[in-house]
């Protein structure tokens, strides 16, 4: 059976990013169908499909929509296109190659919760993507799919893009809302949650969903929840975009059902290790923030679903697979990821602001061959002290790579502090250039 294509339709239909082409291939029929249903029916359809949030947490999308209070006059939909997790580049591909499906999905969501407007928050670096989206919105508007009385009915909704400006933290939903309101992109105290009055955009109840999540919705409307649920595993319905980077022959974004295994993706599709003679060593299945694992047979034969990855002590999250072969020093990986989180910590809460700074200093010392034997324990302890008491998940994300690299690859660290370290693959002078 060929794999179903729900999101990357550009692979099958050339130029589907153009409005006319999209419409010729069934575009906006999902929205049309939704407009013929009651908002609650739409929410139930999405609930029944088993669609889970693709931003990383995997929260059921329909359930999220159902949290929006019905009696509030103003509500919003915010699409999280702030794709910034290390190793993640799937949403960009959807928006580049299949933008109308995102717009259509966002409007279906807006109809389901009766939102006044949709804001698509793109990371600032998606400058060109945003401009193409703006054009797509205008094209759709011409046929009455955006703006007043959509599809000739009573429902009106605007769709806007908003560019961020380089801040990973704005992918955190409450920081995203702050940023969109023109405030510092720092997370808010919750509750109230975005779906609640007082917690969303401009204090109004708001759905925040990832691009990939929303882009699934038109397909669900057209083909029905039951069809969608047939794809994937029991707890992970549908297809997933897997971003593969690092040491494979063919890195890229691949759409596969959740039933696919790491082996199918990394060997059959990506062609295995990029350098002949080297073997896979480690895998970060969910970007820099998810737990690292040995890329061994057990992992390779695991299905890339929410429930299966949990069984091997990691997560599928945003499905950003960073593959490392046996040339890689995992201490260096920990350093790279820590530098990322140190750079992206918003500074609002103490453990994350100070912890990432501290961790980075100690790991630099370890990598420079000046680590003390107790330094490994120290960073592990500092990371553990951060986890669990930070304001938002970023602190947790920053602690994870340290905790799990040390847990799973202790030898890589110990060899440094035992003064046996080789500085491969990055010489110290280059590290300095890479540091802040």
């Amino acid at each position: 059976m060929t794999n179903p294509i729900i999101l990357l339709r550009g692979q099958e239909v050339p130029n589907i990013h153009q409005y006319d082409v999209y419409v010729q291939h069934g575009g906006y029929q999902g929205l049309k169908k939704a407009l013929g249903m009651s908002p609650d029916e739409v929410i139930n359809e999405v609930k029944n499909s088993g669609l889970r949030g693709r931003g990383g947490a995997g929260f059921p999308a329909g359930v999220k929509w159902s949290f929006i209070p019905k009696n509030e006059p103003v509500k919003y939909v915010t699409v999280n296109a702030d794709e910034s997790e290390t190793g993640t580049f799937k949403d960009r591909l959807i928006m580049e190659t299949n933008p109308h499906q995102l717009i259509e999905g966002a409007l279906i969501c807006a109809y389901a919760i009766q939102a006044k407007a949709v804001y698509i928050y793109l990371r600032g670096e998606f400058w060109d993507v945003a401009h193409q989206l703006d054009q797509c919105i205008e094209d759709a508007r011409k046929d009455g799919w955006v703006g007043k009385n959509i599809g000739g009915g009573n429902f009106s909704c605007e769709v806007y893009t908003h560019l961020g400006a380089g801040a990973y933290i704005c992918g955190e939903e409450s920081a995203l809302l702050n940023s969109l309101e023109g405030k510092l992109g720092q997370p808010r105290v919750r509750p109230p949650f975005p779906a609640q009055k007082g917690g969303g955009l401009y204090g109004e109840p708001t759905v925040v969903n990832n691009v990939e999540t929303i882009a699934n919705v038109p397909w669900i409307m057209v083909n029905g929840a039951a069809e969608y649920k047939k794809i994937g595993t029991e707890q992970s319905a549908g297809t997933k975009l897997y971003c593969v980077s690092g040491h494979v022959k063919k890195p890229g974004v691949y759409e596969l059902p959740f039933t696919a295994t790491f082996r199918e993706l990394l060997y059959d599709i990506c062609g295995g290790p990029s350098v002949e003679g080297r073997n896979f060593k480690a895998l970060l299945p969910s970007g820099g923030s998810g737990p690292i694992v040995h890329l061994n047979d057990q992992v390779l034969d695991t299905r890339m679903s929410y429930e299966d990855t949990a069984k091997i002590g990691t997560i599928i999250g945003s499905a950003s697979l960073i593959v490392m072969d046996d040339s890689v020093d995992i201490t260096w990986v920990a350093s790279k990821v820590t530098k990322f989180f140190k750079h992206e910590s918003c500074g609002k809460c103490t453990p994350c602001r100070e912890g990432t700074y501290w961790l980075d200093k100690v790991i630099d010392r370890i990598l420079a061959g000046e680590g003390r034997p107790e330094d490994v324990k120290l960073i592990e302890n500092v990371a553990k002290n951060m986890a669990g008491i930070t304001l938002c998940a970023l602190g947790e994300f920053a602690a994870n790579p340290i905790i799990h690299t040390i847990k799973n690859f202790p030898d890589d660290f110990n060899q440094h502090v035992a003064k046996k370290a080789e500085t491969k693959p990055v010489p110290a002078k280059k590290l300095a250039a890479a540091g802040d």
Partner: protein
Amino acid sequence: MAIINNDKYTQRINWHLSKYPDKRSAVMPLLYIAQEEYGWVSPEGINEVAQLCDMDPTQVKSIAGFYTMYSEKPKGKYWLQVCNDLACALRGADEFHHDLLHHLGIEEGGTTDDGLFTVEHVMCLAACDKAPMLQCNFHFMENLDMAKMKAWIEEKRAELEKENS
């Protein structure tokens, strides 16, 4: 020039201001416009954006400082932001970044004497499968190597020379 009462921007400014129920939300798009006009987020630009968004200039400065894509100091004509995050580094981005700095004879964050190039490293730009890559004035350049870069740099230098002569 200024961005207020400047025909070049009036339409865009009004559009951004119209997108949101609160003017303050337009601060980010308008900061981009200020950066476009002045080449960086200059004090004049900050004050103008503050005026347009009905904000205190302190708050605008705060926003400009939080995000990495607003530059609070002047940059070269080509602002090259090289991703050397983990995924890119696995594909040689650190070496690429280092060699690029070396080739241009500048330090990290520095600008070439001719004012053409500023190079700094940035975190993941969501193009990990096309590393090494960089963002030049917000447009991506992907699957790079130093040979390609050297040719491109020569091209830009030649353009500058042509302009000057």
